[in-house]
């Protein structure tokens, strides 16, 4: 059974007074412990899908099933409770945190909100989370703006896994990082997936990264699915014009080809 089942998802906005579909009848599924990548040119609707799946915005049509239940039917306290299972990591780790927060507070919030640990127990949990993502537990006392970008993205991942989710949406989560840091973060994500069977909805425009981490890929074009399938197969032999253009535009891939 699929973990996340999205069907005919549609979101319309207005552009110049005329309605247009940023996401147009999009359907896909993500299985437990699986990584599904969303690729596509800028403006193709990737972030909009992420926000829809996270219920940060509401769709105009379509269904979202999550863990076997109708995710769109939830509201209020029930929705907030279910959010523990579905987390997100943003592109810009600096913008993703309250500028006044400390690392400890950022990690304390989900533990407190979902009653995962008592107040007395939380500092130990926070230290464990930091170690889990390869950070020193002493970092907890630091302000969020006092740590490096790579450390911050690790904190974002620690926050996402604090509530033991089954799915994490990553919207360009490694795009803003240095190449060396990017590799380490991808390594961490793969390790977490192996050990805890977390599924990822992995949004990226970098097909090299997608081929390294994703099982399957969905390529979007102007809000619609252009093609989808096994990540390596699609990237090796794209069928759609957008897919071909994306592969053309990825220099490392062309170089890697025999």
């Amino acid at each position, binding site marked *: 059974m699929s973990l996340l089942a999205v069907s005919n998802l549609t979101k319309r906005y207005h552009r110049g007074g005329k309605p247009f579909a940023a996401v147009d009848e999009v359907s896909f599924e993500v299985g437990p412990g699986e990584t599904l990548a969303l690729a596509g040119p800028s403006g193709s609707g990737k972030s909009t899908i992420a926000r829809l799946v996270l219920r*940060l915005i509401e769709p105009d049509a379509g269904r979202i099933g999550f863990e076997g239940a109708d995710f769109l039917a939830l509201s209020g306290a029930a929705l907030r409770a279910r959010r523990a299972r579905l987390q*997100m990591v943003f592109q810009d780790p600096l913008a993703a945190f309250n500028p006044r927060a400390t690392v400890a507070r950022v990690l304390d919030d989900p533990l407190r909100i979902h009653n995962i640990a008592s107040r007395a127990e939380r500092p130990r949990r926070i230290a464990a989370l930091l170690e889990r993502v390869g950070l020193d537990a002493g970092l907890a006392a630091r302000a969020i703006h006092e740590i490096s970008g790579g450390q911050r993205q690790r904190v974002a991942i620690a926050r996402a896994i604090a*509530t033991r989710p089954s799915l994490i949406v990553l919207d360009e989560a490694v795009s803003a990082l240095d190449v060396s840091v990017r590799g380490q973060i991808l390594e961490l994500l793969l390790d977490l997936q192996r050990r805890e069977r977390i599924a990822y909805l992995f949004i990226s425009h970098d097909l090299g990264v997608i081929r390294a981490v994703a099982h399957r890929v969905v390529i979007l074009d102007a809000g619609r699915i252009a093609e989808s399938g096994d990540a390596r197969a699609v990237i090796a032999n794209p069928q759609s014009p957008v897919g071909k253009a994306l592969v053309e535009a990825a220099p490392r891939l062309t170089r890697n080809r025999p």
Partner: protein
Amino acid sequence: MNRLRRFFRTPEAIAGALILALLAAMALAAPLLFPGDPQAIAGPALQPPFQDWSVPLGTDRLGRNVLAELFHGARTSLAVGLAAAAAALLIGAVVGTLAGFAGGLIDEALMRVTDAFQTVPSFLLALAFVSIVGPSLGVVVAAIALSAWTGPARVARAEVLSIRERDYVAGARVIGMHPLEIAFREVLPNALPPVLALSSVIVAAAILTEAALSFLGLGDPNRVTWGGMIAEGRTVLRTAPFLSVVPGVALVLTVLGIYLTGEGVVESTAVSRSLS
């Protein structure tokens, strides 16, 4: 520390800070230097200033010590001004945050209420409120706050409207935080700086409104106020002008001090922002 040094760079800021320090010292020292009731009779009526050093600024129509009244008046002015401004900023920040964060009907409703309060001249509003409820210190504070919260509410709302689109607010929703907690713990503190920048203007206006209410006889009758002193002196303005001039000058200096200090603070933070 750096910011403090930057603040004290302009002569205006130094002057403002000195005036405020003096005023605060007067307010704090009033019960020590002039223990007992400042409204009690201290000597013969209408003594001119600088004649009898037990009453350096002379006495008023009823023989009360003007200097003692001035010190105790500073206490009332500062207390009312600060309390009313704090209440106005608090109400404004809460209303503005709720309106901006909730959006939709709640925003619409709250902003119409804000409009309604803003269309009535604020002094009339305070005047009406005190005359209906009756003059006491708490009522005066409430009346002034009621007439001054709309500015902070608008500024807070505008700030919240931009902050609520940031990623970290979405992040707070994703971890399941309650909307009220997001509004007041995550958004409001970050929306405060421009709201607090209004505080000097609001404190100054609150002190002036308090003086005006007292002048009209709507202040707390059990307290000495500068506005009340000016009103008292008005009846003998020709023969003893100092009775109105002394509290009047104190009032002007106070408001000036607050404005200058506020300007200095804004200036120093503006510089630090452009430097960073």
